[in-house]
């Protein structure tokens, strides 16, 4: 069940988040003014290509940014227990509160389960550690919790597999073990950064089905970071499209795929290899490439590749998000006239 928006505070509200990376070569504005909200039980996909900043959003929320990266400004409001929201961006990243939220109310799974696990501890020890740290479970309780968690993610013979090491497992099972570890504390939000990108296609659907089943059972919200439009279409209720650290378009998955508005999203979907092309029909390509990481772009970052862009219109300021429908917004000067914008905004307010 999707909780209606407007019923109190959403689970997660990210407001104008900016995360910069300070490198010797220069400043990288990895996340440059990103805002979105996620309600309890919802699934949002953040989709973008490499360098779009999508993973940095996840790492900012979890406060596990690399050493040289820093949240510059913005708020990450998280309200786990229907209490008053807490600004994760203002907490010390390794403080007591953040450590209890990370792995507790917010679970996380990563792309490469081989590097995310310690190679020298058994799967069971690592899953059980979560229960010991967050719930103060005893050794025996932790082991029981690990077995139970492995069972819930469909591990065959969990009582025996609890004593295996990560390298003994296949990629699919390793990812299941990681999901088990993330879910020990029944998080309200699960963040999954490219959870299936390292897996074979047949295993990928198994893992995504598992995530969707567990989400329904536990009523958690799911934030999936991915570059794959196929994964987005399969799992997401809501989609946020990022490009060069900025949100280009956000809205319900059905609207975004059936009627994409931003020229970038339109071009991206046209460029995606897909079935059913007629003989001789070609994929449309997006000319050029993403601006380099150290480039500072004043206007719309897609301008140099945009078929509809005009330097005079789009080159000086990033367009604000314009509402197209209740939940559908796009950052493009060429979309949503002023009148439409006002009407849509009024409609949104009524809801």
């Amino acid at each position, binding site marked *: 069940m999707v909780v209606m928006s407007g019923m109190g505070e959403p689970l997660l509200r990210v407001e104008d988040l900016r995360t910069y990376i300070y490198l010797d070569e220069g400043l990288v504005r990895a996340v440059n003014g990103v805002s979105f909200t996620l309600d309890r039980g919802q699934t949002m996909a953040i989709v973008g290509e490499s360098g779009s900043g999508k993973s940095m959003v996840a790492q900012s929320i979890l406060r596990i940014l690399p050493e040289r990266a820093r949240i510059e400004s913005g708020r990450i409001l998280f309200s786990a227990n229907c209490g008053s929201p807490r600004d994760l961006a203002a907490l010390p990243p390794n403080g007591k509160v953040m450590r209890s939220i990370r792995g507790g109310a917010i679970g996380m799974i990563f792309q490469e389960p081989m590097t995310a696990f310690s190679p020298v501890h058994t799967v069971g020890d690592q899953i059980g550690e979560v229960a010991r740290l967050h719930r103060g479970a005893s050794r025996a309780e932790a082991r029981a919790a690990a077995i139970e968690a492995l069972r819930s993610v469909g591990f065959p013979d969990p009582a025996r597999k609890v004593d295996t090491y990560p390298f003994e497992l296949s990629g699919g099972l390793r990812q299941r073990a990681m999901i088990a570890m993330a879910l020990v504390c029944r998080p309200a939000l699960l963040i999954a950064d490219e959870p299936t990108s390292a897996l074979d296609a047949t295993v990928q659907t198994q893992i995504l089905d598992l995530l969707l089943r567990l989400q329904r059972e536990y009523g958690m919200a799911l934030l999936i970071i991915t570059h794959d439009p196929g994964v987005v*279409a399969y799992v997401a209720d809501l989609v946020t499209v990022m490009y060069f650290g900025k949100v280009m378009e956000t809205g319900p998955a059905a609207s975004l795929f059936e009627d994409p508005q931003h020229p970038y999203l339109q071009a991206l979907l046209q460029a995606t*290899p897909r079935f059913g092309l007629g003989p001789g029909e070609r994929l449309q390509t997006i000319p050029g490439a993403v601006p380099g990481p150290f480039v500072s772009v004043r206007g719309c970052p897609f301008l140099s590749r945009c078929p509809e862009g005009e330097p005079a219109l789009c080159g000086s300021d990033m367009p604000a998000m314009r509402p197209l429908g209740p939940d559908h917004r796009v950052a493009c000067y060429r979309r949503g006239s002023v009148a439409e914008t006002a009407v849509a905004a009024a409609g949104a307010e009524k809801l």
Partner: protein
Amino acid sequence: MAAREDGEPLLEVRDLTKHFPLYQPWLLGLGRRQIETVTAAEGVSFTIHRGETLGLVGESGCGKTTTARLILRVFEPTRGEISFRLGDTAVRVDQIRGKALRALRPHIQMIFQDPFSSLNPRMPVGEIIAEPLRLHRYGTEKEIIERVKTLMGLVGLNVQYLRRYPHSFSGGQRQRIGIARALALNPELVVCDEPVSALDVSVQAQVLNLLKDLQRELGLTYLFISHNLAVVDYVADRIAVMYGGRIVELAPKQQLFERPRHPYTEVLLASVLRPDPRLRGGAQSASTDGSGLASGGPACVFASRCPYVIDRCRVEAPALQSVGPEHAARCHRIDELSLTPLPRRARVAGSSG
């Protein structure tokens, strides 16, 4: 140059087999002993015709890359024949060595998956592309530089970047460098091993279109390896599906998608995720987990995962049998099963209005 006729067999592979021995340290690490044999490819047979693209699909560990490397003679085959049409004669790639093998190399080239690790970071782009030309004594220094410039133009690289190093290029541009290097010696067969898997979606289309254009302009023949069925559908004419080191089905792409004849192909088609939320639920999980890695024994390689398995499958490996023109599959129940094709889509996603 010999008359090139489209459609004549260019590469014929028969019963190609590769076993890798697995060793374990022995006598306190002073020696080693063989403990097991991994069957990376077993009885692989196919023909590639001049000017066509044969797609090779399957999950990791199924033997796609091993097959490619056997054809390039990176690995020595355990058994089997590889025969390549060179002019009017058929060269037995698996048997030649030394000078004859060296003379064959220009005709079969490879494009690699990872555009980062496949280019020497200490070599400027011009040198990377010139290297095969120098190795095969293409001509004078001036001729080589001219050829490098032509190649860079051909793949859409700015000739001014001749002296730049790989690190200053994006993934897509690096893949273009790799393509230019592969094309330097005018090959007839190009083995493309996951050439776009490491690239962003917006760049994939550029590289795929480039490969298609080059094929048309230069009359190239491709063996195109990918795990992405949509990509293979875009570039290939026929598709070979590999599982556990064996080709389990081989068919023209349309037939493979519309009338799959092997249970593994069905599983593969069902697991395709398409950028269209209306097809949600169309994708189905395979019932069991498997690695696609080959195992020994007389059973069908897919028996342990197959939803249609019967007793016979566990004791006897099926042979590749023909089920129509150009369509073959390796299954005992080929005539009884009616398998689910790739779901048709209502319309192409993303085509607004």
